[in-house]
């Protein structure tokens, strides 16, 4: 059995960028994901963080083969799935599942909860032990919902409950890897904690691996074993959670961490803040050299011309910067 449940080698996904109008031709490409290497070990939670537009969601979706990668390789459970066709992917999909951000648009409003959750069985032609209804009831109990609600519709549930339905659906086929794309960012704080705890419990019980995509660093810190920081389609830094938060080596990671508001007035107001100037550049036309050079306070000439190599700077910590901290 392979040690890593998921390995990405130089994963790249470009989307065609079109100029407006119906007769438009591709004008360039959006470099959404540009050469990402990362691994997820069995039972591990890897947090993928970055600002909007950094390509973190695209990584998650490409892993699931919802997008065809432009280049690179995806190794799932020891098998290269990069070039598998739709039909060939089907048996593999049952081992990798996704939880979506928006619990309102990711559940079919015309289907009952029972239909939504059992559709996994129907699609894969699986007859679970003890029958479909029995399994669905079990799943509902597992995620903390009342199994009597099996015939209700999504609109009868609150946001947090709907997210639990999405989680129950993803667990139906007993997957090995779950890609969770911003699973709590649409929820209120008191509900976020409930869902995070649920994900924690399920991981312990089933030995799940998570690729946890989020922009909220405090949640990522809480749930992840390792964290990958992305910026404009590239990995800037990768390290075990504690190392990354205590000793960030990439200027962007440092800036990102210092921008997170801390829910503690004394610490929040006394610490030194790095406020990066400006906005995220366009991924259609990323800056030459290091993609962060336009906002980096340490940028020098070499940063504008040469793309920094990803170097191992400490055990398990890699950073892509010419002048790491």
């Amino acid at each position: 059995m392979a040690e890593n449940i998921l390995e990405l080698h130089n994963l790249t996904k470009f989307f065609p960028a079109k100029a407006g109008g119906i007769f438009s031709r591709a004008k360039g490409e959006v470099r959404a994901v540009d050469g990402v290497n990362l691994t997820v070990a069995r039972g591990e939670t890897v947090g993928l963080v970055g600002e909007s537009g950094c390509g973190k969601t695209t990584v998650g979706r490409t892993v699931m083969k919802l997008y065809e990668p432009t280049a690179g390789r995806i190794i799932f459970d020891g098998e290269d799935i990069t070039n598998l066709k739709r039909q060939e992917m089907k048996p593999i999909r049952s081992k990798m599942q996704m939880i979506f951000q928006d619990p309102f648009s990711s559940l079919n409003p015309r289907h009952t909860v029972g239909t939504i959750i059992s559709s996994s069985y129907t699609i894969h032609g699986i007859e679970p032990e003890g029958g479909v209804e029995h399994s669905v009831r079990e799943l509902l109990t597992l995620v903390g919902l009342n199994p009597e609600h099996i015939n209700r519709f999504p609109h009868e549930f609150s946001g947090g409950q709907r997210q639990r339905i999405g989680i129950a659906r993803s667990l139906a086929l007993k997957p090995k890897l779950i890609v969770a794309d911003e699973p709590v960012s649409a929820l209120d704080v008191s509900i976020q904690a409930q869902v995070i705890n649920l994900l924690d419990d399920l991981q312990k019980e089933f030995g799940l691996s998570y690729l946890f995509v989020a922009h909220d660093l405090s949640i990522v810190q809480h749930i992840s074993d390792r964290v990958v920081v992305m910026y404009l389609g590239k990995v800037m830094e990768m390290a075990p959670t504690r190392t990354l938060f205590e000793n960030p080596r990439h200027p962007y990671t440092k800036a990102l961490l210092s921008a997170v508001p801390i829910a503690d007035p004394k610490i929040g107001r006394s610490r030194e803040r790095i406020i990066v100037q400006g906005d995220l550049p366009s991924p259609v036309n990323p800056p030459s050299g290091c993609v962060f050079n336009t906002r980096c306070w340490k940028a020098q000439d070499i940063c504008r011309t040469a793309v920094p190599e990803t170097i191992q700077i400490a055990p398990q910590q890699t950073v892509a910067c010419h002048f790491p901290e």
Partner: protein
Amino acid sequence: MSKFLEVTNLNVTFPTADGDVHASNEVSYSVGLGETLAIVGESGSGKSVSNLAVMGLHNVTRTKITGSAILNLSDGPVDLISASPETVRRLRGKEMSMIFQDPMSALHPFFSIGDQIAEAWHLYNKGSKSDGIKKAIEMLDLVGIPDASVRVHDFPHQFSGGMRQRAMIAMALVNNPSLLIADEPTTALDVTVQSQILKLLKDLQNEFNMAIILITHDLGVVAEVADRICVMYGGRIVEDASVEDIFYRPEHPYTLGLLNSVPRITSGLSHRLRAIPGQPPSLINLPSGCSFQPRCEYSSRVSSGACTESVPALNDKGSGHLSRCHLDIADLNDLVKDKA
């Protein structure tokens, strides 16, 4: 001395087919010049609704509003709730302004940024069209838009999210108002841009001595910028205190639960989050008594079922720290210590 804005016993009710939505119940708060008041709560806690009433932005034919919201202007106080819509309209944009969460839908897509800022300026100032644009450039410069004299002719879609929020702030402040209500101003923005905008608001407040009401659900943002905090739950203010009191000496179980349920970057590696069980209440059908009671782990400690029978009063239990709970503070502190 009276504060610049004093809201007292504000009730906002929307009649619907399913019954009356009691979005804001006996809400009182005040904010002084140069002060930042944060109103914190989850979605549906009534934090936006109360402030829309202050701004006179509810549809009065369909909304029942009672109570008072006194704006202490230099030429005498005005009650924004009982005043005529025309009076409130003349104050809006001049004495008080509001910025919203989503700057893209708050800006008009067909008009240039400069025209929209100039329009707000022309409402209260006499001047030519080019004077308005000049003022717009000055404001864009103030809020940190680079090349303001060129970008003033851009349309909203040509601005990034952070720049749009800056443009909104420029528009809100063009007539130098004394009160700025910011409704989730940074929720739609990335953290690095969020910290830019929060710093901008703080700098502008220092420069113009504005009163700011910051409506948010993000306790981190509140911890960094607020002077005073009102915590809302189920349409009521459940705790009202200084920022230090809320974070270090909370007196309401809901505030405590909220603080415990946020993971903190500083708290080292993972402990289990202490989530608040259950769901926030429906504003149509609030629980009897204290609206937090069905989710409260301490309500069993209160004798004789007071929590389900009566709504606790917002008591000042010492030095301006107000809390709406039947539980004795000393008891609560003991319980918190026991758990920790």
